[in-house]
């Protein structure tokens, strides 16, 4: 078990952009209370117990992000990374604590196809309008976004016909078409090919250099080390470690290596 490290002390001059203050996220989920296989379940249709299970996805996490930092978020599957990112973006309500930020963070998440039955181009337009841009601004951007995504031949097809890689490219391109003060990229690039991954990582570094703050959730330690100057490790809803990328990634590798060798 890696040692828990305290959150880094703020330096006097740095400007905070995101403050996560003792955030708890709890989901209340109706569990079926019944095993899927007949032998294990037993009993008739009405014998199942409907249980309301509380799942604590995040159990009290605090940290402060300063201007120009790009933060890698690592942790095992189901450790609460995506829940925390959605809470930072204000898309999932927190059950306790609060998230503060200087601007509304933009989340680029996995599988968030806007409207699968509409063409890529119409999704670009709708996404832009929802974010409050004028139709004129969006029309000027459509070609640029299509080109960055490399989807010129498919932009008029419904998004449900796109491969997961293609829709990930389009979503990233929509979000990256503008500079965001705070951008959260949640594994959205995991399904992209090598060439697009390099292009998107270059774009993220560019945004970071323009004083934007970036959160990158990834299982690729190489992407994290290439893009981030700070890494936060979350495990089962707890903050395990926060600090220098190489140190945290080494500790995480040691942890996962240890559990898989049991």
């Amino acid at each position, binding site marked *: 078990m890696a040692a828990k490290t305290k959150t880094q002390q703020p330096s006097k001059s740095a400007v905070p952009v995101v403050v996560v203050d003792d955030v708890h996220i709890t*989901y209340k989920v109706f569990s079926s209370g019944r095993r899927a296989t007949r032998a294990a379940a037993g009993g008739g249709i009405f014998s199942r117990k409907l249980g309301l299970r509380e799942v604590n996805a995040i159990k009290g996490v605090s940290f402060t992000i300063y201007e120009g930092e790009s933060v890698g978020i690592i942790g095992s599957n189901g450790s609460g990374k995506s829940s925390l990112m959605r809470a930072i973006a*204000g898309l999932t*309500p927190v059950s306790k604590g609060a998230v*503060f930020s200087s601007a509304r963070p933009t989340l680029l998440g996995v599988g968030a196809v806007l409207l699968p039955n509409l063409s890529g181009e119409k999704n670009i337009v709708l996404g832009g309008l*929802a974010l*409050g841009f004028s139709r004129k601004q969006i029309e000027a951007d459509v070609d640029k976004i299509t080109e960055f995504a490399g989807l010129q031949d498919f932009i008029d097809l419904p998004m449900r016909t796109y491969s997961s890689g293609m829709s990930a490219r389009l979503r990233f391109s929509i979000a990256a078409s503008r500079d965001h003060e705070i951008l959260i990229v949640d594994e959205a690039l995991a399904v992209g090919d090598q060439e697009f991954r390099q292009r998107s990582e270059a774009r993220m570094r560019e945004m970071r250099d323009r004083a934007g703050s970036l959160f990158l959730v990834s299982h690729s330690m190489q992407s994290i080390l290439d893009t981030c100057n700070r890494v936060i490790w979350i495990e089962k809803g707890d903050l395990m470690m926060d600090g220098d990328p190489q140190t945290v990634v080494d500790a995480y590798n040691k942890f996962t290596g240890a559990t898989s060798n049991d």
Partner: protein
Amino acid sequence: MSLADFAREHGLKRVGARPAFLDYVAQAWSRRDFAFTLAKFTNEAANAKNRLGRWWVILLPTVQAMVYGLIFGVLMARDRPENFIPFLFTGVFLFTFISGSATSGATALTSNTGLVRSLAFPRVLLPVSAVIRQFLNTLPQLGLLLITLVLFQQGITWNWLLLVPTVALMSVFNLGLAMIMARIAAQVQDINKLLPFVIRILFYTSGIFFSMDHLLRNHPEILAVLHFNPIYDYIELARGLVVQGYQTSAFLWLTAIGWALVTFVVGVLFFWKAEERYGRED
């Protein structure tokens, strides 16, 4: 110093906090184009897989009207209200506008989870967009109604123009209704199971294919209560304007205006109150 104080001191704002009511309305208004575009695109996508495409917008109400005409006009031919076909079509088409708004309002948030989970915008735009979609689908039905009126009765009167404010009042009422349904359905999904039955009951009790005044002429007290049913008010008002042999009254106009304003204001406030909670995955 606590982290929260530290954050406030640096001018950071709480993420996802519900904006003040007037700010919220202003934000929603400035993004009204989104609601229109979403309604238009969703309509296009809904018909894209059908071979006849957009023609269904006209075909569907025609088939619907023919079926109702058959059932209520031929099979239940006794005791029909005066000027039956225009009476029936006015009722059915306007009822569809209201019931469609309630139904699509109830699914406005749940059927757009992709949008809710990935973009931050005033959620009220989703039920608003649902009503705009219903309105766009009602326009061809109203066209069909006007054609029917010309075919079945003589002459066009200036009163027909008053259909415009009537449909406008209905739309305002529907907006409020859709917002209320959207919040209830987002928090208690089970309501979607009961909604079809509620709509059926309203269909039979709002005097769509029979005259309530005629049927309940011996029970004036029940009739008086039913006269406050907003669905009945809007449909009676429209009939009074365009169907020969029916009259509007000051009572109908006042209740129509009252229902529109009260439902809309209650709907916006009710929906806004829970703004922070939409999109919760439970």
